C-alpha cells in the first residue's frame, strides 16, 4: 500500500497538469509570476494569511515528536536566544548581544529587558537556564536536538538579563545553533512537565513571539493571532492560519483556488502549472541542505578513495538535478552549502565533471577489471552491492538514476526500496547497509562536526562511519576558531579536504520552491521555514 503512495503522487501531478485544460475553459489564465518590481508600498496592517502543513504539529520545539510540520509554527511563536538573520548568520532574538570568554569555554548573552510571555508573565534569564538545564541537558528526557549541545556543561542565570553557557570544550558555533529550533520554554508553565504537557504541545502554548496560538483544532488547523504582550513592533497580520492538508496535490489545488497565501511546493512537477496561475508567484529559495550517497566504510571496497571518486565521476549529477529537481539545485562537492555565503567555496563546484571514462580509469587503478559481461571484477568477484532506498521525497527516482549511471561503469547496485520507518531502523539505527542516499539539513553554520567526526561513527550522525584524524583535526579547529576570518580559513580547508577524500559522496544542494500569493509582502527571501522567524514583518496588500 505504501508503494501506491508514490504512484499516487505522480498521478495526482498528472491530474494537475490536466487541470490546465479545465482552467483554460473557465478563462482567467493570464501570464503572471514575474517578480514584482513596482515601487515598494508602505506596509499596512490587517488580513489573514493561510499556510498549509502536512500533519498536526507539536507546539514545543524540544519535543521528540515535533516533526518537520511543527517547525513552521514553533519558529513563529517561540523565540530563541538568537535567530537566523536574513543572511543566515545568527542575529539577536531574545538576546541583544553576546561575547565569548578569552579561553572560549563560555559564552555570555545579554538578554532584552521588558520581554513578557504571552500570558503577561515576565521573561527572564531563568527561563533560558530552565530550558537548557532542566530540559535539553537532562539525558532522561530525550529532548530533540540535545546531541547538538554535547559541549554545553550548564547554563547559569547571572542576573535577570544575563545568561552564561559554560562549555566543556570550545564551541564557536553556539550562537548559530541557538538560532536553530532552540525556542525558549516558559519555566512558570512547564516546570513540572516540560516535554509532554498536552495543553501546551497540542493546545495553546505560552510563548514570546509576535504571534501566539489562538486555537488548535486537531486534524484541521492551528490559528495564530497577534501577541499583545510582544516586546517588538506589532505584527501587521491580524491572523495566520495553518491548515492541515496531508496531500501535496491538494495543497497545490488550494493554492490555485486562492485558499493558500504561501506554501512550499514539494511536488516540483507542478511548478509550470503554478507559474501560469494568476495571483501566484513562484520563487526559489536557498536551503542549508545537501544530498549525499553514503558508502559504508566497514565494507573494504569502499575504503579506497579512488573508488569513491570514481563513483562521483560516474554519477551524472546535473542530469539528476534537471530531471528530479527540475533544475532547482546545484552540484555539491562539500558539506558547506551555497546558502552559507560567507563560507561556501564556489571554486569546488566543477571539481568532478560527469566523466564515465575517468571513473573506469580510477576503478582500474584501484584494481578492478572489467569482465566479459562488462561488470568490474576483483579476485573473481563482481562489483555488486545493495542500495537501500527510503520511501520519501525524491529518493526513489534519484536511486534509479544512480543505479543506471553506475551500471555504465560496470558497477551493479541492486535497489532495496523500504518503508521509511523500517529504513531508518535498518540503515541508521543498526547501520546495517552497504550504500544509501539521503540528505542532511543542519543549523546555518559550517560546523559539521556531528556528521563527520570519528567519534560520531557507528552510533552518531557519521552515517558512512568515515574516520580520519586529519578531518577530525579540522573539525575541532573550526569549533575552536573564534573570529569569522579564522573560521572561514578553517572551513575553506575543510571543504577542499572533504571534496578530495569524500567521506560522503556529495550529490547536490537542493533549492526550495515557494508559491506565494502576489498580495503577500514582506516575506524575506529565505526558505519558508526560516522566513517564519520574520512572520511579524509579513503584510497583505489591499486588493
Amino acid at each position: 500500500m505504501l508503494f501506491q503512495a508514490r504512484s499516487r503522487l505522480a498521478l495526482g501531478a498528472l491530474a494537475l497538469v490536466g487541470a490546465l485544460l479545465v482552467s483554460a475553459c473557465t478563462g482567467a489564465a493570464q501570464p503572471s509570476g514575474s517578480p514584482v518590481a513596482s515601487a515598494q508600498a508602505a506596509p499596512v496592517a490587517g488580513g489573514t494569511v493561510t499556510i498549509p502543513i502536512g500533519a498536526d504539529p507539536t507546539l514545543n520545539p524540544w519535543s521528540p515528536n515535533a516533526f518537520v510540520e511543527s517547525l513552521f509554527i514553533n519558529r513563529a511563536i517561540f523565540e530563541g536566544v538568537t535567530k537566523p538573520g536574513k543572511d543566515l548568520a545568527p542575529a539577536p532574538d531574545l538576546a541583544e548581544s553576546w561575547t565569548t570568554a578569552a579561553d572560549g569555554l563560555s559564552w555570555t548573552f545579554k538578554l532584552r529587558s521588558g520581554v513578557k510571555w504571552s500570558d503577561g508573565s515576565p521573561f527572564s534569564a531563568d527561563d533560558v537556564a530552565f530550558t537548557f538545564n532542566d530540559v535539553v541537558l537532562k539525558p532522561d528526557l530525550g529532548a530533540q536536538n540535545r546531541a547538538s549541545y554535547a559541549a554545553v556543561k550548564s547554563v547559569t542565570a547571572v542576573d535577570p538579563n544575563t545568561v552564561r553557557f559554560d562549555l566543556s570544550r570550545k564551541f564557536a558555533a553556539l550562537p548559530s545553533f541557538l538560532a536553530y529550533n532552540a525556542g525558549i520554554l516558559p519555566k512558570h508553565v512547564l516546570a513540572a512537565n516540560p516535554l509532554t504537557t498536552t495543553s501546551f504541545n497540542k493546545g495553546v502554548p505560552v510563548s514570546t513571539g509576535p504571534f501566539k496560538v489562538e486555537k488548535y483544532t486537531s486534524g484541521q488547523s492551528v490559528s495564530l493571532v497577534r501577541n499583545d504582550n510582544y516586546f517588538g513592533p506589532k505584527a501587521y497580520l491580524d491572523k495566520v492560519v495553518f491548515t492541515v492538508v496531508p496531500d501535496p496535490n491538494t495543497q497545490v489545488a488550494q493554492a490555485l483556488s486562492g485558499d493558500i497565501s504561501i506554501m512550499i511546493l514539494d511536488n516540483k512537477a507542478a511548478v509550470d502549472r503554478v507559474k501560469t496561475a494568476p495571483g501566484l508567484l513562484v520563487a526559489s529559495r536557498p536551503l542549508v541542505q545537501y544530498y549525499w550517497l553514503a558508502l559504508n566504510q566497514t565494507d573494504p571496497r569502499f575504503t579506497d578513495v579512488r573508488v569513491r571518486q570514481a563513483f562521483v565521476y560516474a554519477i551524472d549529477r546535473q542530469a539528476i538535478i534537471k530531471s528530479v529537481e527540475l533544475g532547482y539545485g546545484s552540484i555539491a562537492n562539500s558539506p558547506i552549502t551555497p546558502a552559507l555565503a560567507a563560507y561556501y567555496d564556489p571554486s569546488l563546484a566543477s571539481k568532478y565533471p560527469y566523466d564515465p571514462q575517468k571513473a573506469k580509469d580510477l576503478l582500474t587503478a584501484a584494481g578492478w577489471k572489467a569482465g566479459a559481461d562488462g561488470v568490474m571484477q576483483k579476485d573473481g568477484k563482481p562489483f555488486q552491492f545493495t542500495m537501500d532506498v527510503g520511501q520519501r521525497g525524491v529518493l526513489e527516482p534519484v536511486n534509479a538514476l544512480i543505479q543506471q549511471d553506475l551500471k555504465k561503469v560496470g558497477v551493479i547496485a541492486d535497489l532495496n526500496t523500504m518503508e521509511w520507518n523500517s529504513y531508518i531502523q535498518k540503515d541508521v539505527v543498526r547501520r546495517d547497509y552497504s550504500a544509501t542516499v539521503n540528505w542532511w539539513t543542519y543549523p546555518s553554520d559550517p560546523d559539521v562536526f556531528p556528521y563527520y567526526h570519528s567519534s560520531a561513527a557507528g552510533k552518531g550522525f557519521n552515517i558512512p562511519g568515515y574516520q580520519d584524524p586529519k578531518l577530525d583535526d579540522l573539525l575541532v579547529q573550526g569549533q575552536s576558531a573564534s573570529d569569522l576570518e579564522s573560521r572561514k580559513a578553517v572551513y575553506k580547508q575543510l571543504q577542499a579536504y572533504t571534496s578530495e577524500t569524500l567521506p560522503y559522496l556529495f550529490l547536490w544542494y537542493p533549492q526550495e520552491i515557494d508559491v506565494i500569493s502576489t498580495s503577500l509582502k514582506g516575506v524575506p527571501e529565505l526558505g519558508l521555514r526560516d522566513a517564519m522567524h520574520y512572520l511579524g514583518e509579513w503584510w497583505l496588500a489591499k486588493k
Partner: protein
Amino acid sequence: MIVFASALTFFFVNLAPGGPASIMRFDVSAEQREALIRLMGLDRPVPQRYLEWLAGALRGYLGTSLLTNEPVAARIGDRLPNTLTLAGSALLISVVLGIPIGVVQAMRRGRAIDHVLSLLTAVGLSVPVFWLGIILILVFAVSLHVLPSAGVTSVSSDTLGDRLAHLVLPAVALATTILPTVVRFTRSSMIEVLHEDYVRTATSKGLPPSTVMTRHALRNALIPVVSAVGALVPRLIGGTVVTEAVFGWPGMGRLALEAAQGRDYPLVTGLTVVVAAIAVLASLLVDLAYTRIDPRVRLA
C-alpha cells in the same frame, strides 16, 4: 472476537520493523533513542505490555498515544464522528443512487441505457479515489469555485450549511469505492428475481407493474443487496484512509495512517478495536434489516 483482534494487532505492530516515529528519525542520537525507549516503556517484553494494555482496556482505558501523549480513546473519539459522517454519507449516496440505477438497468436489460450505465459503473470501479478526489477539487473548487476544497469547516464560519458544503466532495469520492458494486448487485439480483415464478404470477394476477416491481420483485431482490452492503462497510472504512488524506478530512482513516507510519502501538491497537466493533455492529444491523425485508426471517 474483539479481544482476539486486539491481541493479533498488538503483537503484529510491535513485531513490525521500525519503531515509534520519535526514535526512528535521522537526527536522533543513540543515547536519545535509548532514553525515549525507556520513557515509552518499550524496553519491556511485548506479552507483558499487552497484558497491561488489556487490563486497562477492560476497565475502559485504551492506553496513551506514543505520538502525542494523549489518551488513545480521546484521539479516536475526536475523529470518530467525522469518519462516521463521511462514511455514512457515502453509504447513503451509494444506496440511494445505486439501488434505483441497478433497478433501471435490470428493467431495461440489454438496452442502450443499460449499456451506458454498465460502462459508467465499470469506469467507477476502476478510477482510483485519490485521482477522482483531485479532479473533483480542481473542477468544483479551483475552476468553478462552488465548493470548498478541503477540511470539515471553514476557519471563519462553522455553520451547518458550511459543513454540508465541505462534505459533498469527499462523500462523493468515497461513495465511488462501493457505489458500482451496489449497482451491479442490484442489477443481477433484480434480473434473477424478475424471472421467478412469483413475479410472473403477480403480473398474471393483473397487479399493476409498479406494485409488482416494488412489493414483489424489489423486496426480494434487496435481500442479497443488503448483505452485500453490510460486507462493503469494511471497504468503505478502508476507503476513508485515502479520501481523508486528499480532502484534509480529520477522520480515523488519516489517524490510522499516521498511527501505522509512526508505529504508535497503542493507537493502532485502539483503532483496530474500534473498527472491529464497527464491523460487528454493521453485520448486526444487516441481520436486523433482514427481518424487515425478508418475510421468511422473523425475530423469535
